[in-house]
C-alpha cells in the first residue's frame, strides 16, 4: 500500500535525511545526514523504523502536509506548536493521520530542527548508500533539493495502526540560548599559544547569522590571533576551524571534505547535535575534556542512542 504526503507549505528548509553517507569523503562528497542525530534516531525508533531510515528534517517549522490515507508518524526535536487539522498535539510521541488530515508545524520556539518519521518509512532511492539530501551537491533525498509546495512524497505505511508511544520528558532534548559545547583537542591544538588557548576556552562566543547545514560561524568579542595556514587536509563534522580573522567556524553535517585552516578543537557528537538547534544570537562556550573523559562521555552518549526507551501513552 502506498500513501502520498502532499506538501502544502514546505517551510524554509525541509529535506529528507537519514544518518548520512559513510566512506564517500575520499571522493569529495559530504556526509550530510540529520543535523540532530539524537532526535532523528528517536523519531525513527518510536515508529519501529530502523534508526537509519529516511525521515524529514524540518528547519524552524512553518510547514503543512496532507496525507491521502492513514499513516502513523512520530515527531521529535525542536519545540514548535503542532496541529493535526485544528487540534494541538504533543511532540516526542507518535500520532496517526487519517486520509485527508493536515499536519501543521508552527514556528519553532525552542530549538530549530524537527524530525518527522513515518511508520514504514519514506519511499526514496538510495544514493551512494544513503537517502540524505546534500543540497549543495544536488544529491540524494527528493531530487537533491529541499521540498517545495506541491511536491508529493510516497510513504509505505504498515497495514496495522500502532498504539501511541512517547518518550518521557527526561529522554527528550532540552534547548537553551546558552550552550556548553564539549570538545577534545583537534590536530592543531598545540599550535596555539597559551593566551590563545585561554581566549578559546574562557570566552563566550555568539552564533553569527552565517550558520547553515555546512557550518556555524561564531563571533568573538576578542578574536584569536591568526595562525599560519596548514597544507590542506581532511576535516570532519564538529571540527572547530580557525580562519585568519580569528572567528571560529564549526563544521556541521554538510561540511566540505578538506580544508587548510587550523583546527584546535573538535566537538563531541552530542555537542554537534546540540549546536544544530542554536540560532544566530545564541551563546556558546567550549569545554575542553581530556581524551579519556571525552571518550567516556562519547561512549555514554552512544549507549543512550542504542537504548532510547519509549513508553506507551
Amino acid at each position, binding site marked *: 500500500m502506498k500513501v502520498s504526503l502532499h506538501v502544502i507549505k514546505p517551510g524554509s528548509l525541509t529535506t529528507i535525511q537519514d544518518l548520512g553517507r*559513510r*566512506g*564517500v*569523503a*575520499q*571522493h*569529495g*562528497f559530504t*556526509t550530510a545526514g540529520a543535523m540532530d542525530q539524537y532526535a532523528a534516531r528517536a523519531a525513527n525508533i518510536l515508529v519501529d523504523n530502523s534508526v537509519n531510515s529516511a525521515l524529514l528534517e524540518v528547519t524552524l517549522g512553518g510547514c503543512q502536509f496532507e496525507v491521502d490515507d492513514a499513516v502513523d508518524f512520530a515527531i521529535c526535536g525542536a519545540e514548535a506548536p503542532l496541529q493535526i487539522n485544528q487540534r494541538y498535539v504533543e511532540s516526542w510521541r507518535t500520532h496517526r493521520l487519517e486520509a485527508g488530515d493536515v499536519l501543521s508545524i508552527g514556528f519553532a520556539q525552542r530549538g530549530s530542527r524537527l524530525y518527522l518519521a513515518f511508520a514504514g518509512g519514506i519511499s526514496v532511492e538510495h*544514493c*551512494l548508500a544513503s537517502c540524505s539530501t546534500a543540497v*549543495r*551537491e544536488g*544529491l*540524494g533525498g527528493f531530487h*537533491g533539493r529541499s521540498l517545495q509546495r506541491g511536491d508529493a512524497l510516497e510513504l509505505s505505511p504498515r497495514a496495522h495502526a500502532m498504539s501511541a508511544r512517547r518518550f518521557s520528558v527526561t529522554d527528550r532534548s532540552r534547548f537553551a540560548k546558552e550552550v556548553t559545547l564539549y*570538545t*577534545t*583537542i*583537534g*590536530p*592543531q*591544538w598545540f599550535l596555539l599559544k597559551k593566551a590563545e588557548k585561554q581566549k578559546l576556552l574562557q570566552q563566550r562566543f555568539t552564533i553569527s547569522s552565517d550558520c547553515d547545514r555546512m557550518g556555524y560561524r561564531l563571533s568573538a568579542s576578542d578574536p584569536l590571533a591568526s595562525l599560519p595556514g596548514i*597544507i*590542506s*587536509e*581532511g*576535516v*570532519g563534522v*564538529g*571540527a572547530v576551524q580557525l580562519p585568519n580573522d580569528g572567528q571560529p567556524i564549526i563544521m556541521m553535517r554538510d561540511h*566540505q*571534505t*578538506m580544508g587548510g585552516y587550523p*583546527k584546535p578543537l*573538535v*566537538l*563531541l*557528537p552530542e555537542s554537534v547535535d546540540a549546536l544544530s538547534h542554536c540560532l544566530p544570537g545564541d551563546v556558546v562556550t567550549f569545554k575542553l575534556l581530556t*581524551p579519556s573523559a*571525552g*571518550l567516556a562521555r*562519547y*561512549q555514554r552518549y*552512544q549507549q543512550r542512542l542504542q537504548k532510547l526507551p519509549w513508553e506507551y501513552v
Partner: protein
Amino acid sequence: MDRPRFARAGVNAMLMTLAETPSETLLNRIFAMQQWLTNEKPPWLVDIVPAYVTLYIVFDPVLIDRFTAQRWMTEAWSALESQSIHRPKQHIIPVYYAPDLCPDLDIVAAMKGMAIEDVITLHCAHVYRVYALGFAPGFAYLGELDEQLRVPRLATPRQNIPAGSVAIAEQQTAIYPASSPAGWHVLGLCPLDLQPTSDDLQTTFAVGDEVRFEAIDKDTFISLGGHCEVVS
C-alpha cells in the same frame, strides 16, 4: 620522517601525517594505502580522506581503541613501502584557452610578463598529479604548477564560474566540475562533464592519477559539448 605521526582529531578521528612536504613518491604510497584500505575494509574504519601529506581517519571507538588503530595504520603504511609502485591512470583533458571568454588569461600573462601563448604552452607542458580530492565532488587538486605561472588567489572571489573552468592558484591547478564560487584565476574551459553521477561513486580522478592538458580550438570545444560562457 621515519614513522607517521598521529594527532587527535576528536574522539573518533585522527590525522596521520606521513611527511613534512608533498612529493610524487609520497603520493604513490598514499594512493596505494587508500586502495589497500578500500579493499581491506576493516569494520572500525568509517571514513578516510587522503590529502597532500596526510590521511584523515574516522574510526569507531566502540570497535577499536585509538592506539590499536594507530598501530594497525602504522604497520599497514610500513608494509606498503616495499610494494611495487602502482601505475596511475592517465587523463588528457581538452581545454579551450579562450581570451574572449576567460579574461584572466590576459591578466595572468600581464602579471607574468609573457604572451598568452606562453601561458598556454606552460600550462600544457606539465604532467600534473592529483594530490587530493575534495572541496566538492569531482574536484581534484593538481600539482605542481610551473613556477613561472604561479599567481595568488583573486583578492575578491567570483560569485560563480562555469562548470569546466580550468583555473590556477599558487602551485595548484584544477578543473571545477560544477559551477561554483571561485577565487582562482581561470585560464580556459574544459568541455567534458567531470561531475560524478550520483549512482556511480567513481569520480573521474583518483589521488595519484596523472593529468595533462591539451589545447583545443573553439570548434572542437563546441563539438565536444562545450558551451561558450564568459567568465565574469
